[in-house]
Structure formats: C-alpha cells, structure tokens
C-alpha cells in the first residue's frame, strides 16, 4: 500500500473521528433522556462512526485516482506570510480599531504579494477603508468601535 498525502489526511481524519466519537460519548444528557430513543449524543455518535468508517475505508483501500501535487512549486512563503498577517489582524482589530488595523493589513498583504506601486497601495488601503467605513455607518447603520479614531477625535 502506497502512503500518499491523501491517505495521511484520511488517517488524521480517522483519528479526529475517534476523538469526536469519544467526546460524543462524554456529552452529558438529562437523566430522563438517558434511555430515550434519541438524545443529544445520538446523532454525534452516528457521525463519529460514519467518520471512522469512510476514513478507515479510504486508508485501507488502494487509491484509484491519486492527486498529483508538485510540492516544489507551492509558494509557502507568501501563503504563510498572509496567514500570519491575518492572525496579527485578529489580534490588533479590537485594540487598534477597524480603520488602522485593516489599512495596515491591506498594506502588508499588498507588499507580501510583491506589489510596489506605492500610489495604488496607499489608495487601496487608508482611503479605501475610510470609504468602506463611511458606507457601513452611513448606509447600513453598522457601528464599528474604533479606539484609534476616537482618540484622534474623528469618531464618537
């Protein structure tokens, strides 16, 4: 049996299904529901078994249509850069506010992807986010808490 990345993913899913099934059995149900034909843990238990069944079958059976991916051509650097930038965005959005964190996120992602046209980088970040925020406030009445804009006195 050839170990392919799809099989490794399926094996991980098998382990995940096992964990899911174990957790499903731990779900606390009301005492009067314990022997009922259906309670809060019934459906998850079936799902756990289904997950084990399909992933187990995939791991055991030979792969008829294996996916071919050339790992050498994948751009790990840029993808990882974007993912880290998004996590940083999640960390800063509540503290720095929507305007500043979003604008910096956009500038950062343009640069990570190799853009060097600074005029467009600027237009499609700070002014773009400002217009977007105006549309949210003005048209959709969605209030965005923004400590930075509050600090400089633009927002109440």
């Amino acid at each position, binding site marked *: 049996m050839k170990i392919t*990345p*799809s099989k490794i*993913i*399926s094996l991980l*899913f098998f382990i995940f*299904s096992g964990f*899911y099934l174990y957790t*499903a059995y731990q*779900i*606390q*149900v*009301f005492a009067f*529901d314990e022997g*009922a*034909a*259906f*309670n*809060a*843990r*019934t*459906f*998850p238990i079936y*799902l756990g078994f*289904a*997950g084990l069944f*399909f*992933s187990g079958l*995939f791991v055991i059976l*030979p792969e*008829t*249509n294996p*996916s071919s*991916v050339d790992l050498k*051509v*994948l*751009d*790990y650097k*840029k*993808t990882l850069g*974007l*993912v880290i930038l*998004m*996590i940083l965005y*999640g960390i800063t*959005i*509540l503290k720095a506010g*929507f305007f500043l964190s979003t604008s910096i*996120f*956009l500038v950062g*992602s*343009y640069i990570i*992807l190799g*853009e060097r046209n600074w005029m*467009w980088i600027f237009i*499609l970040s700070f002014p773009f986010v400002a217009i*977007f925020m105006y549309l949210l406030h003005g048209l*959709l009445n*969605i209030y*965005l*808490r923004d400590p930075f804009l509050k600090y400089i006195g633009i927002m109440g």
Partner: protein
Amino acid sequence: MIEGILIGLQTALSLKNLMMVMIGCFSGTIIGMLPGLGPMTAIALMIPITYGFEPSTGLILMAGVYYGAVFGGSTSSILINAPGVPGTVATSFDGYPMAQQGKAGKALAIAAYSSFAGGTISAIFLLIAAPSLSLVSLSFRSPDYFGLMILGLTAVAAFSSKGNFLKAMMMVVLGLMLASVGQDSLSDITRFTFNNMNLSDGISFVLVVMATFAMSEALTIIFKANDPTKAAKAVSLSQLGSIKLDKVETKKMLATIPRSSVLGFIIGVLPGAGATIASFLAYGMERNFVSDEERQKFGKGSVNGIAAPETANNAACSGSFVPLLTLGIPGSGTTAVMLGALLGFGIQPGPRLYQTNPEIFWSVIMSMYIGMVVLLILNLPLIPYIARVLATPRTFLIPLILFFSLTGVYLMSFNNFDIYMMIGIAVTATVLRLYDFPMPPLILAFVLGGLMEVNLRRSLLISDGSWAFLWDRPLTLCIMLAVVGIIGWQIYKSFSKK
C-alpha cells in the same frame, strides 16, 4: 397563482429590489469573471451585506449575484479560455476559438442571448413547477425529509467527487460534525464546546462559507502560485468586435435553446447535478442533434457549441431553486449557501414558504426574469469595460478578497475569536482542496446538519427507536433505494477503473 405573481412583481419591481438585482448581477459578473472565484464565493461575500436588508431583498440580491457570476464565468471562458466557474468550461470549447477568430463580441453576445433565453424559459418552468411541487411536498413526513437529505448529500458527494467518492463522503461527515458544535436544539445541552463560550452558539454559517470558499480560494491561488490575470494580459479586452448576430446564427440558436433549456432545467432540479453537468450534457447532446457539416465546426467556434452549454447552465441555475423553494433542501452547494442565508433571516424554506411568505417565494422567481433582462441590457454592452477587471493584478485582488472575507465575518459578531477560527478553517480547507477533497459537500452537510438531526430525532421517536422508518413508507423506501443506487454506482465505478 396570478395573485402570487403580482405580489412577486410588486416586491421585485420596487426601486430598492430593482437596484439590488442590478448590483447583484453587476458584482456577480465581476466576481464570476475572475478565474477560480465562482458563484459560491460571490454569494458568500454578499451574505454579510444581505443581513442588513429584508429577507426578500437579500435573496433577490443573492439570486442576482448567482446569475451574474455564471454570466461572468462565461466571459472569462470566451475571452481568455480560463473559466471562472466549472459550469462554463464547456462554453470555452467553442467560445475561445471564436474569440481567437476576432469574433469575441459575437461569442459573448451568443452566450448572453442563450443565457437570457435559457434562464427565462427555465424560470417559466420554475413558475409552474414550484407551486405544484410545494403542494405535493406538504405530504412529506420526517422520514421522507431525512431520506431526501441523505439523497442530496450522497448525490452532491457523487457529482463533486471527481472520481473519489470516499473523499467527498469524508467532507460530508466533517460538515455534519462542524454543524453539531454548540447547543443541541431540543435540550439546550452544549456539545463539543470544550467550555469555550465562543462556541456555545455553534459555528457561524457565514464563517464556514467564507473560510472554505472566499478565503480558501484566495489562499489556494497564492499557494499554487497561480496568476489568474496572466492570460488576460495577453489579449485585448477593449477590442472585442461586433456583438450583432446575422440571420443564420440566430436561426441556429433558436433551434438549440429550447432543447438545452429543458435538459438544463431537469438536470438542475436533480440533487447534486447542477450547471456543470447540465452544460456538458447539453454540449454533447447538441453535437448529436446538429448536421454532419455543423458537427465539424464543434471545437472551432460553433454557434451551437456556445449556445447549448450557456442555455443549459442558466436553466440549471433556475432548476436548482426547485428543491430549495419547495422542499427546503438545496440540491447544490450554491443553493446550500442560499439556504444558510435564509435560515439566518429566520426563514425556513420548504412547502410552507409558498403559503407563509409568498412575497419571498414569488419575488425570487420574478427577480430571476428581471435579473436576466439586466444581464442582457446592462452587462452585455458593458462587457468591454467589465472585462478589464480580468486584468486586475492578483497583488491587489487577493488582499481585497481576504479583506472582504475577514470584515464580513467580523461584522457579524465583532469577536476576534471568529477571525482565528476562520483562518484555521481556511488553512485546513486550502490543504484539503490541494488534494482534491471537495468543499461543496461540506457546505451542504453543514447547512443540512441541524435539519437532518431534527428529522432523524422525530423519525426515531415515532418509530420507537427502530430504523424501520427508512422502508416503512413507499416514498421513503424509493428515496433510500436511490441513495443505495448512487452508492452502488460509485462503488462500481471505482472497481471498474481498476
């Protein structure tokens, strides 16, 4: 029915809703045109916006986006041979060769007229079929619904699996597992939350759709180092030639459109099949219908070769609304996204929608006609300008998609935990996509998870814990036989390949 049509027209023709159809068609065309970004991404990006509107307005906007995205997909198929959506792959077989002959405008016009005709004819079918089917489906019981959901999931898994049914079934189970997180709908017992308050309400539908489609597609483009705009730079997007058709071409289209519409609508109604299969089947059928002389032109810029798949894929889009509106069970990934959005509005589509919310039921159907007209009169003349979107550098395109995805989810909850969860799901989805684990079955399962559990609960309680409910009623038995048939066919296909 006349009263319903009038209600629908009144709602759909209000200034706000007309604007929404136009915005939907326009933005759908732009997003659908970008290779790799299909109708599901387009609709996913629109969901957060729709929550600010009334349900009918929101649904009209999404329907417009759906049609626009399919039309946009055809444009990129014809102009740069890079189909924006799988449903328009067949269009590129003859559309691109015609464009290379300097008749891109003509190819686009054939695609637009065929889409319009296919969409309109199938919308008439929908108008007739949906109310009748709604009445029939009132007699459906919980076991039937449970069976139909299993059928829908199995069919979508079978059609989207690209020859690997087990991978698709794993995605179905994963979708159902994600849907089980949070409070149990009946007992309010929390499940799989691991004492994290952020999970007690379950995982947001918008989050899952945005993560698995919009964000994951953007990350996949970067990860695979694809540049969807590269092909666009090699062609002139402003010099597309005349969009006028001569008599012979019109005559050829008139013959193709009716048969492709019927085929597309029927395929669209079937769970899981959708626009892609409809367009390929219509292309194949058309090759068999035309004369030997015309058949020789297929693959070299045939009018019939463009008209057939374009008519069928738009007809299938309307057809896919039938199970959604009448049974409340989506037959495709795209309509699953719409179902999720409707549930977000607090509306349960199904046989009773026709009676309880007629304005939504009819306005969606009516807005389909209007959407088609908008596509024809607004988008077609504007194509030389809209097509320039294809040349947008990915260095700007990808960050903007990520921005709309992150913002869309953040605006729903104002909670950065959702951003982290979204990133986690998107990264997982990107890796899964790389190895051909399909995402539409996951979304469909995620949307149907709650409904499936409710119907299984009712069925098991009624039958006192016995699984005999699966074959007690003839209707349920037929549905389950269809499920067994699909699974059997998939197993046969796997073994026959060896």
